[in-house]
């Protein structure tokens, strides 16, 4: 293995977004038939670097070489032509079109009078057989499962003859079993001479699949070593820089039920049944973690509790009292605190100031407005108090929220939610995209709320987080929720099987 061929070389790449340096003179190389894993916290600059390699961005300094040729045009067409394929973190598929449509686009000259669909279908089918990536070429993408969509993404790259494959957080949306399957496929590909860059922030997986590990922190390459020389501790320290003490879960005797959902069903705007007889009881001084592959009804359940989606049947009771009016304001008034799934989309109004965002759920309160007039002084004072209490950095009350980092934006939302001491906290993916420090802050806040007597429903795709934070775990699958399991009795493997539906059974009612 001494004379291995370098297939991809990154030389001194620097990329700035305004004042933020996302990548600072990064250099590394990838050998043929090897897996290089790029590790780093959220926000360390991994995705930016990959987007530069694939030509979405152009580097401010430095360059990328693939098979000895420099990438110069700075667009994906060039990278594809040189044999780079990329599976993006967020799928890049057009939902209303077929798998074949998504694969075939860009593979033939745009000015052809006919598409060579028959030949394309054959090529796609033989590829999917060769690599064990089964998928129906004529299925609409919207009908595919998450795992199938990922297969299509990989097939797209293989179809274009990719010899270097970049996978950006490919396991984030998969069950442990699906992850194993993906790894088997990857190993198969490597055996056929493909080289892989595998991006992740999960140590365990990386140790399984990688040959070399490169660690990014704050946009800099802080370490690079063969996986054989690495240990979990060393990598973790390199990733985070310092060890942040993780708050520990404390055992507490759960109190009275604060949220009871009994056989609730709901339909979305298209009339699809998204919740099917869901039953769940959340008690005071309890954190229930909810696992599940995304798209299995978590959003609907979260909307139900948030007051955005009324049930078509069944009941929801808050603190023993049945909810009749489903709208966000009355849910908040009943003592439900809600941390939404998507900060930018639902959590904050990006063009509003910190102080305006802090009162967004509470602006009708006489504290902040009287007879229709906003009380600017009170609002600013409130903002100053919250900024101090929740350690919101990067600006003052009049700072536009869009400019804050993800962690600080989440603190604004947490401040808004927790300030009124809600009895029920719905936290939907509260740490998604946050670095370890910010995620720890979120967990601390959830623990504090629990100790104070609140019940917390934590919905997360990060199974390790769920197991570390929750007292009980439930799984959501096809719009149904399983019976709760004490966290001590649950393993990752079990969760995976439940999430894929293999051993799943829905819970009965408890009310």
């Amino acid at each position: 293995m001494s004379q291995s061929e370098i297939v991809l070389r990154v030389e001194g790449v620097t990329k700035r977004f305004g004042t933020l340096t996302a990548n600072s003179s990064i250099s590394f190389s990838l050998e043929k038939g090897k897996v290089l894993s790029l590790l780093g916290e959220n926000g360390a600059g991994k995705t930016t670097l990959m987007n530069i390699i694939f030509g979405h961005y152009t580097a401010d300094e430095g360059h990328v070489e693939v098979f000895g040729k420099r990438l110069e045009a700075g667009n994906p067409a060039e990278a594809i032509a040189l044999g780079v394929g990329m599976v993006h973190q967020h799928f890049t598929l057009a939902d209303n079109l077929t798998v074949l449509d998504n694969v075939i686009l860009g593979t033939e000259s745009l000015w052809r009078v006919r598409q060579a669909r028959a030949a394309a279908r054959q090529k796609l089918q033989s590829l999917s057989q060769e690599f064990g990536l089964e998928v129906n070429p004529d299925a609409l993408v919207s009908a595919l499962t998450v795992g199938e969509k990922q297969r299509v993404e990989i097939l797209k790259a293989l179809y274009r003859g990719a010899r270097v494959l970049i996978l950006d957080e490919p396991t984030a949306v998969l069950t442990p079993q699906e992850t194993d399957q993906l790894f088997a496929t990857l190993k198969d590909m490597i055996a056929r001479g493909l080289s892989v860059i595998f991006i992740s922030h999960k140590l365990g997986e990386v140790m399984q699949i990688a040959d070399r590990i490169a660690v990014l922190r704050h946009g800099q390459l802080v370490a690079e070593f063969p996986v054989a020389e690495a240990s979990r501790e060393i990598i973790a320290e390199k990733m985070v820089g310092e060890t942040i003490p993780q708050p520990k879960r404390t055992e507490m005797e759960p109190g009275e039920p604060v949220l009871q959902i009994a056989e609730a069903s709901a339909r979305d705007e298209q009339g699809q049944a998204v919740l099917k007889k869901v039953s769940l009881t959340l008690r005071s001084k309890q954190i229930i973690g909810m696992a599940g592959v995304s798209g299995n009804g978590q959003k609907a359940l979260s909307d139900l509790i948030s007051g955005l989606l009324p049930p078509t049947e069944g009941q929801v009771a808050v603190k023993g009292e049945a909810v009749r009016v489903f709208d966000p304001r009355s849910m908040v008034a009943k003592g439900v605190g809600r941390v939404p799934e998507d900060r930018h989309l639902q959590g904050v109004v990006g063009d509003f100031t910190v102080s305006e965002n802090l009162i967004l759920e509470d602006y009708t309160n006489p504290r902040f407005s009287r007879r229709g007039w906003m009380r600017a002084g009170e609002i600013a004072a409130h903002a100053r108090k919250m900024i101090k209490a929740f350690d919101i950095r990067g600006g003052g009350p009049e700072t536009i929220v869009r400019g804050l980092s993800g962690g600080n934006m989440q603190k604004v939302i947490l401040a808004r939610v927790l300030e009124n001491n809600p009895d029920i906290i719905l936290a939907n993916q509260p740490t998604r995209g946050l670095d370890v420090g910010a995620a720890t802050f979120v967990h601390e806040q959830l623990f504090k709320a629990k100790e104070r007597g609140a019940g917390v429903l934590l919905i997360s795709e990060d199974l390790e987080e769920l197991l570390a934070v929750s007292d009980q775990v439930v799984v959501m699958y096809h719009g149904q929720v399983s019976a709760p399991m004490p966290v001590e009795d649950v393993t990752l493997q079990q969760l995976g099987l439940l999430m894929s539906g293999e051993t799943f059974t829905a819970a009965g009612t408890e009310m």
Partner: protein
Amino acid sequence: MDLLDMFLNVGFWAATVRMATPLIFGTLGELICERAGVLNLGIEGIMTTGAMVAWMWVYQGGDLWTAVLVAAAFGMLFGYLHSMFSVYMGLSQHVTGIGITLLATSLSYFSFRMLLPGVTTPPKIEPFELEPIPFLSDIPVLGEALFTQSPLTYLAFVLVIVVAYVLYKTPVGLAVRMVGENPMAVEVQGIDVYRVRTAAVTVGSGFMAVGGAFLTISVFDAFYFDMINGRGWICVALVIFASWKPGKALLGAVLFAAFDAIQIRVQQSSASFIPYQFYLMMPYLFSILALIIMSRKAAYPKALLVPFRRGQR
């Protein structure tokens, strides 16, 4: 009622097809833009420009078919300008469109005034003549109505088929449809999203301008101010009515024109006691009605109105 007479009347069907023609061009043009994810509210102004330019070309001694091409070229120019703002700069498609309509309209009027100063009654030109298609035009009623039309009308029908073919059967059509659904899916396949969108808006705007030209060099023989009279906006409604499908766009345009033809006939019949202004409101009311009927089913291209910005986090 002599309704049956009307439906057996060649003149009625001929008028329907004639009135549908500018709508077919406009609706197809708007459909191409929207399929690529760009709402083109410049349509009203671009149709005005097409009408003015084509007429002026013929008036200055130019040939009719060249006039069609010149109109299309001017339409494409405004479409390109639209895409500079809405595609490359990612600005609001609503405001850009209104801006293009105001600009195209005012430039057309300004130019008309500059080229023909002091004209009070609009001068006339020799427009396209009806070209009956041999044999087909001999078929009673429907054949007579359909195949005794202006060559531009035949062109409109042919274009429906061409657009449908290109959209659904060719690589470039796939790129246009995909860029309207998820531009990122196009970008990752190595195709320039900006170019696809710009091309679609430019070509679509060319269609719109020909729709305008039809009015001045085929049905009528002169250019009047305000002669587009909301036809562009009606086309925007028709695209929604047609669920972004070329075949349905044709159907919608013909249906709409038929209602218009009925309306005119009823208005002209002596039995009418309703003021004519209320008949003239009909097309606009029908459009609103069509929007309401289709509102539940409307499956918008997912990326419609959403600007795509390259290389941005």
